[in-house]
């Protein structure tokens, strides 16, 4: 060796190399400099040894007609999470589950300073994928990665069907790997097991529109079909929120209920008992009560009827009448109570007490007109009529409670439907879907 010229300057800058395919003579472009291990001739589909100056042919493969070209053309540059990458390789891989083949595409992204990155695309669903530095630990049907739990989604044999461009590894058509996916939307953790090596990678879901923007692609990204394994649910984020809101409002309602209960006067303004002898005067007569005062703001009035009925009934026609204006509120109430014993044990029906609330009764002097009815053969009966002013009505709060509950349940239901659609495609489909397909 001669002493030669001292290497004072740095080695020449690597450049995109122009070469020719030894099989068909077509131009071969090497974009990833010395990084490429294999490069595929786009014209004759020979897989060539990129490290060999003569581009030795490693494998030739047949291409089915109608092979889909990459959606992001090779050589396109784009920015993913702040770093520029160039698309240098493209492959189509597939798994076969229960006789159905599922194909997806992988794009190899190159930056001379950064680790190789990948994009995958399946029916309009994209993932940004990089190799894990930290080792995930498998625990039953899940994996712990950096303290987070990823659920097992699917294990399948992946086959490489079609390759284009260049790869920083020895790519071959027909190569198999056992691919296992674990999901924690929007992320997916995948292990690829080959003979001597297990590679873990971490992917994050990306929307087609964001890919289109990142690579400045013409037109619109194809619409995503169905729900993908790690696609973030549009509603699951809301489920917690709506239930927190529901809880907050429910507490508020309870506080309001308690407040109204404290504020309502609940004064008993009338309380009287009557004896009814069914047989005595033919044709039940009506009678009026003494006058009682309803005070304060316009508010409700509660009329409680109790009777010692026993396997019998009493029906009362009421009228609450304003002595001064003559305005009347008519209403009928029935008190009935039945009980007995049958093959299922003892039973009861009805109650010896009945309550009714008449809303918005202004203050004034009032009396009740009462017309009781019973079975003519009924033994003598005692009933009590009690009138209370300004009571709380929990029923209204119940309606408000339901009004809050319904959207919470609706959102939870939507979220569950989304998760069912997600897991229907997994190794662990929801039970009813699995059984209906058998």
């Amino acid at each position, binding site marked *: *060796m*001669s*002493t*030669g010229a*001292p*290497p004072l300057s*740095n*080695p020449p*800058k*690597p*450049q*995109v190399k122009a070469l020719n395919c030894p099989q068909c003579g077509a131009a071969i472009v090497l974009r*990833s*400099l*010395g*990084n490429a*291990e294999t490069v595929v001739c786009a014209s004759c589909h020979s897989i060539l040894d990129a*490290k060999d100056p003569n581009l030795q042919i490693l494998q030739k493969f047949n291409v089915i007609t109608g092979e889909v070209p990459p959606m992001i053309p090779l050589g396109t540059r784009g920015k993913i999470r702040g770093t*520029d990458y160039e698309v240098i390789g493209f492959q189509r891989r597939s798994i076969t589950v229960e006789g159905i083949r599922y194909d997806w595409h992988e794009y190899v992204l190159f*930056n*001379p*300073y*950064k*680790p*190789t990155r990948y994009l995958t695309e399946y029916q309009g669903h994209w993932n940004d994928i990089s*190799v894990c*530095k*930290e*080792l*995930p*630990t498998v625990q039953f049907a899940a994996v*712990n990665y*950096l303290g987070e739990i990823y659920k097992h989604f699917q294990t399948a044999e992946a086959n490489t069907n079609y390759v284009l461009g260049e790869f*920083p*590894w*020895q790519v071959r058509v027909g190569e198999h790997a056992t691919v296992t996916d674990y999901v924690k939307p929007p992320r997916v953790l995948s292990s690829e097991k080959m003979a*001597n*090596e*297990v590679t873990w990678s971490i992917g994050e879901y990306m929307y087609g529109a964001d890919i289109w923007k990142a690579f400045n692609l013409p037109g619109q990204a194809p619409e995503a079909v169905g729900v993908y394994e790690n696609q973030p649910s549009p509603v699951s984020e809301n489920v917690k929120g709506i239930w927190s809101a529901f809880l907050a409002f429910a507490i508020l309602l309870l506080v309001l209920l308690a407040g109204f209960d404290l504020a309502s006067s609940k004064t008993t303004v009338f309380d009287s008992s009557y004896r009814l002898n069914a047989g005595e005067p033919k044709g039940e007569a009506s009678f009026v009560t003494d006058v009682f005062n309803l005070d304060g703001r316009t508010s409700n009035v509660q009329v409680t009827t109790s009777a010692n009925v026993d396997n019998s009934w009493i029906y009362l026609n009421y009228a609450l009448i304003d002595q001064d204006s003559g305005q009347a509120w008519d209403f009928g109430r029935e008190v009935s109570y039945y009980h007995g014993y049958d093959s299922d044990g003892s039973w009861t029906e009805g109650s010896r007490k009945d309550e009714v609330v008449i809303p918005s009764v202004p203050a004034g002097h009032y009396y009740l007109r009462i017309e009781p009815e019973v079975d003519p053969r009924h033994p003598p009966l005692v009933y009590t009529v009690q009138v209370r002013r300004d009571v709380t009505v929990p029923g209204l709060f119940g309606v408000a409670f339901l009004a809050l509950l319904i959207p919470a349940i609706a959102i939870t239901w939507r979220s569950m439907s989304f998760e069912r659609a997600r897991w229907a495609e997994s190794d662990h489909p929801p039970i009813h879907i699995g059984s209906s397909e058998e």
Partner: protein
Amino acid sequence: MTQPVSNCPNCGAKIVFKWSSSVQTVCPYCKSILVRTDVDLKKVGQVADLPPDSSPIQLNTEGIYRNKAFVVIGRILYEYDQGGWNEWHITMNDGTSAWLSDAQNEYAISFATNTTGLPAAKQIQVGQQYNWNKQSYTLTVITPAHYRGVEGELPFQYWDKTDVTFADLRSETGKFATLDYSDEDPALYLGEFVEFDDLKLKNLRSFEGW
């Protein structure tokens, strides 16, 4: 040890050692592999042309690791059936020596250990667990590699190799370990994966269009 400055016994060029503990270097002019003896430098071999390389790192690349500045002073280049990788020999500003490995732009920094009782090459299998320095490691890949060449200063003699086996181990926390079966007794290197941006590297190679 010789002075840090001496002459290449092959071509007479001045050889300056950047690190006083370097045992071997390569003459930048005639590519002779030179080993330090008690009195002078001895030529033990010759580096064939290294294959075109895609690493952004080169000799004299500087960086920072755990608040310590380092400089790249040498490297060993390996090849295996899925590609090649570089073990860059770096020295920290406190005089310690370490390795910055660059495998397809995945970077890790590791330090030599004098751990004994290491498993023999025949015993290792993918999936095995080992504990060193209270850290658990899982063996993820065994790489039968081929020594391809050296450049610059190294902390040991390394030039007459052909096939060497490495086992890489990873942890749940991003720690990294390598079992090196280059010599009769295995050697253990412990370290961690590092992000390119975190190393704040200077004097990198530039790439056309990037």
